[in-house]
């Protein structure tokens, strides 16, 4: 699904340049659930941004579902993002003046799906993340965990091939973190490929594979026994 060969990325700030990714080789097959770990500043987000076509790579090769991703113009990149990728952010990044279902429907809007169908599908996805009663609520009326679930529903809405999550539980307490991870596991169970950037060991172990970044290279890449989230007894 994802194939990266000898990926390099530097940031230039004035005369300084910062070599962030120094030759990453890495591939992800369909249906994997991969955790990307590493200390702060090790380049996790940078890697994820490049995978998400939000940033350009300097050197190396990137194949997404067999398509070479290089020097795409903005419009094309937007199309690929819309078709292939779903994003989940640490800070949710919901649009605050849109209701839950309108947020979820946004990727469909950019696909040109008509309003009625959009609403139907958005509600279906919100129900699948357990937010059926909240479809008309604004983000400000939702808890952090609920917001992240709206974001997950939004990432699912366009039925992407790959979901990219940058510290999806970073802003949540452990109970809601587990709820979110439970959801991510279930989505993965249905066959979706998911990459999760995280700091936390226990979150990483809820995935099926852990990749360790350090100083811009992969220092460890291991398959782990997935810890299933134990549902909290309410």
């Amino acid at each position, binding site marked *: 699904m994802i194939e990266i060969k000898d990926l390099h990325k530097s940031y230039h700030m004035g005369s300084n340049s910062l070599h962030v990714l120094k030759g990453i080789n890495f591939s992800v097959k369909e249906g994997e659930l991969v955790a990307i770990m590493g200390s702060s500043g090790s380049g996790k987000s940078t890697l*994820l941004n490049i995978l998400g076509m*939000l940033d350009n790579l300097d050197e190396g090769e990137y194949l997404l579902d067999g398509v070479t991703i290089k020097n795409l113009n903005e*419009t094309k990149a*937007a199309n690929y*993002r819309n078709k292939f990728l779903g994003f989940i952010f640490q*800070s949710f990044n919901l*649009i605050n*003046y849109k209701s839950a279902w309108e947020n979820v429907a946004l990727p469909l809007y*950019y696909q040109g799906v008509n309003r009625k169908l959009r609403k139907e599908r958005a509600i279906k996805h919100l129900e699948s993340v357990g937010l059926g009663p909240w479809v008309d609520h604004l983000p400000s009326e939702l808890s952090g965990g609920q917001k992240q679930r709206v974001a997950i529903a939004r990432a699912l809405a*366009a039925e992407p091939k790959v979901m990219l999550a940058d510290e999806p539980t970073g802003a949540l307490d452990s109970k809601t973190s587990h709820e979110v991870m439970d959801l991510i596991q279930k989505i993965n169970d249905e066959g979706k490929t998911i990459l999760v950037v995280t700091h936390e060991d226990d979150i990483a172990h809820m995935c099926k594979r852990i990749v360790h970044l350090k100083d811009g290279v992969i220092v460890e890449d291991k398959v782990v026994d997935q810890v299933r989230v134990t549902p909290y007894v309410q």
Partner: protein
Amino acid sequence: MFSRDLWSEIFHSIKSNKLRTFLTGFSVAWGIFILVLLLASVDGMKNGFTKQFNDDATNSIFIYPGSTTKPYGGFEAGRRIQFDNEDLDFIKQSFTGYLEYITPRFSKSVTANFGKETGTYSIRGVNPDHQIIERTVVEKGRYINENDIQNTLKVVVIGKVIADELFKDVDPVGQNIILNKLSYKVIGIFSDDGNEREERNMYTPVSTLQRLYGNTRNIDQIALTYNPEFNFAEAINFSDNIEVALKRRLIIDPEDQGALYFNNYAEQFSNVSNFTTMLSVISIGIGMLILIAGIVGIGNILVFIIKERTKEIGVRKALGAKPFDVIKLVLLESVFITSISGLIGMLFAMAVVALISPIIDAPAFSNPSVDNVTIITATIVLVVAGVLAGLIPAMKAASVKPIVALRAD
């Protein structure tokens, strides 16, 4: 492009920024308000000027004789020129097709009596054509006709002022009026848009007046109108041609400036038109300048909004918004705000104009109004202004990199 979704996006954005939308809109509304008022004022001046000219047909030429200033053809300088009926017939025959109406004017001052009332007025001997050239409005009865001319009838059409002064409550039409001891029959009463002084005149067949005053064939003036299709240059050219022909006929040096006077309304009218056109241009210029301030204001605020919405735009892009989607959003919002507020400004200005227009009717400023051209122009200007104002912010928005959305704040 104008889907319901796009509109709801725009409304969302406006609703969540009410104050700023109001402030932005106000600057545009103000600009258009001033622009429309200025244009209406120019229109008012134009009306004022035109009205003053409306006294007579705007395609008219008045020819007066003077005295020669140069010796020519055996005559010494200082000879008084006198027109007669043959001169008029000459013009009529020489310029058929170019002429529309033509009339002589032969004027006398008369003492008029009706009952005990008496007054001094001017009487003009004219042809029926005179009515059209002078734009005389017959209020009651009729004007001079061909039959009156043929039979040199002693009939008069009197101005409203004379009717009021001499006849008081009596209906003048059908009454006899004594003019310099001769009795005339009043056949009509006229009014004149131009001025009240005009209404102190009376008209009688030129043939009658010539017969009664020494059986002469002399006339004082010739008034005519030319083909109304003539443009300014053609009108001037036509009047030059008459001048040349008349000078040849009356043996006047072609260079003599004093022997004949031509009063061509086209010339004066064109001067006024040029003047008011210039005023229009100036006021459009001023209006535009004010509007530019509005545009810059909107642009400025939109740039600020874009900055505020950077994250949102980044998220939209991450979700698949193409640069054009973003440009569309910003531009349409800008055009929408400018159009609506401009429309409001325009309506206010039109309301103000509608309120004051009937009150104001001074000689140089009369019934200002807003014409369709102004409205259409203003609308186009507004849409263009909206696009211009939104353009830079829209480009800025389109260039937002989606990574910014991924960065934790």
